[in-house]
């Protein structure tokens, strides 16, 4: 056991899948709601969004050690964001499924519930005090922003089946992309400023390049171009989705270094003097 922060091993791709599915599903549901209001036939999209969210939760079910006790997840709404997420998922599915019969208002309601659900997901990460990259408060807006951007991306990918991509969707997508860019940049700045495990920052720095190209500039360019060349809209969407998913997958499976261990002081030994503290494997502040 080394003292430096190490990639956590408790949550793997299955847990990441929940954040991928939940974020993209929520975003897609929001866009579906807008599409519904705009009169588009979004029924299958709603189903896809619900499937994504359900799939994510299914992945978690695969990860937990005692899957047949899954109902115990509802026991701690008082403090656990995981319990709250589980509760939040219920109206999403209720409204989402109802929307298949009751139409756009219910989709909007489902989308609103999903936003709460996604917010809970952000708070799940933020409450994970053991992982510096997660407990950074900007993780919540980041989860929301990238979820919406991913959902927007998925919606653009679906537009060939809806006819051409609506201009409002492209505009909203661009706004989401810019929002994600802003939050992602702020998130990293805050992390660097606050101090973080060196490995976390190194992984994020390496990821940032891919995220910038795949998740920001390519989709932005494609989305702008899609005003003229409609075929580029799904491309923009796919890039945005891939970039977001890569970012979240990285955050869970590669940039989730543990806190590690730190000493405020090194001890005196006999007549020898005490020494300075240390926080091995960290940047920024020391103990």
């Amino acid at each position, binding site marked *: 056991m080394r003292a430096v922060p190490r990639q956590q091993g408790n949550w793997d791709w299955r847990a990441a899948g929940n954040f991928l599915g939940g974020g993209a599903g929520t975003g897609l549901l929001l866009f579906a709601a807008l599409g519904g209001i705009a009169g588009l036939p979004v029924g299958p999209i709603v189903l896809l969004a619900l499937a994504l969210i359900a799939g994510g939760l299914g992945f978690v079910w695969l990860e937990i*050690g005692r899957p047949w006790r899954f109902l115990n997840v509802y026991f701690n709404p008082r403090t656990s964001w995981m319990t709250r997420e589980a509760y939040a998922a219920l109206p999403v599915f209720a409204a989402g499924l109802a929307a298949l019969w009751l139409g756009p208002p219910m989709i909007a309601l489902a989308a609103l519930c999903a936003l709460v659900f996604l917010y809970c997901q952000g708070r799940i990460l933020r409450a994970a*005090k053991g992982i510096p990259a997660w407990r950074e408060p900007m993780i919540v807006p980041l989860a929301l922003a990238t979820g919406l951007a991913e959902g927007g991306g998925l919606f653009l990918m679906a537009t060939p089946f809806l006819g051409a991509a609506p201009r409002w969707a492209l505009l909203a997508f661009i706004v989401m992309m810019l929002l994600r860019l802003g939050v992602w940049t702020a998130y990293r700045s805050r992390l660097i400023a606050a101090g973080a495990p060196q490995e976390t920052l190194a992984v994020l720095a390496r990821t940032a390049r891919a995220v910038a190209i795949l998740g920001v500039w390519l989709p932005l360019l494609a989305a702008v171009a899609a005003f003229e060349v409609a075929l580029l809209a799904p491309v923009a969407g796919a890039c945005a989705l891939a970039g977001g998913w890569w970012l979240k997958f990285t955050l869970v499976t590669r940039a989730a270094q543990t806190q590690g261990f730190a000493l405020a*002081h090194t001890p005196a030994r006999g007549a020898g003097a005490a020494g300075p503290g240390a926080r091995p494997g960290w940047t920024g502040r020391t103990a």
Partner: protein
Amino acid sequence: MTRYVMVADLRRCVGCQTCTAACKHANATPPGVQWRRVLDMEIGEYPDVRRAFVPVGCMHCADPPCMEVCPSTATRQRDDGIVTIDYDLCIGCAYCAVACPYQARYKVETPRFAYGEAPTESEAQRHEAGRIGVSTKCTFCVDRIDSGVEQGLTPGEDPEATPACVNSCIAKALHFGDLDDPDSNVSQLLAENQHFRMHEELGTGPGFYYLWDRA
């Protein structure tokens, strides 16, 4: 009130891992699971280097992030500050494990034994199926404390009421006792020495103090 805490004297600890082994004996933890362990930390650069041995494990925090996140309420906190896990409630989501800044929690998915698939006689006798797929961690040997207290013994002083790691420590570096009792061994140690708690800035209020110099 009672608040049980552990005190580790970093000046005395030699990193021998006797506490690690004693904990494994007392709690029958499977290979790789160390509720108590001692880090071997190196600080500085050659030739100005220090090396410190740092016992770690569950800090039994006053404000335990593991308990806050636990969706099943399996993780709880007793009035005496000991943070417990109800293995029958735990769903094994490991959320507590990522919430703990001290890497103190373990989840073992399948039975694990010292020598391959089959348990030794001792392991077979002590294997608890209820610990598979759920979160586990240091309990401060809570059963020992409870039975000791019932017999009128003092945790931290009487071995029968004291965590195994403390009992085993060959450097007398580990101490256990009631922080709320100003006359307790741990209160005295904290009064007489300078100390810190790990990652105090995270606000978890760890119940594990490190002595590093005289007061």
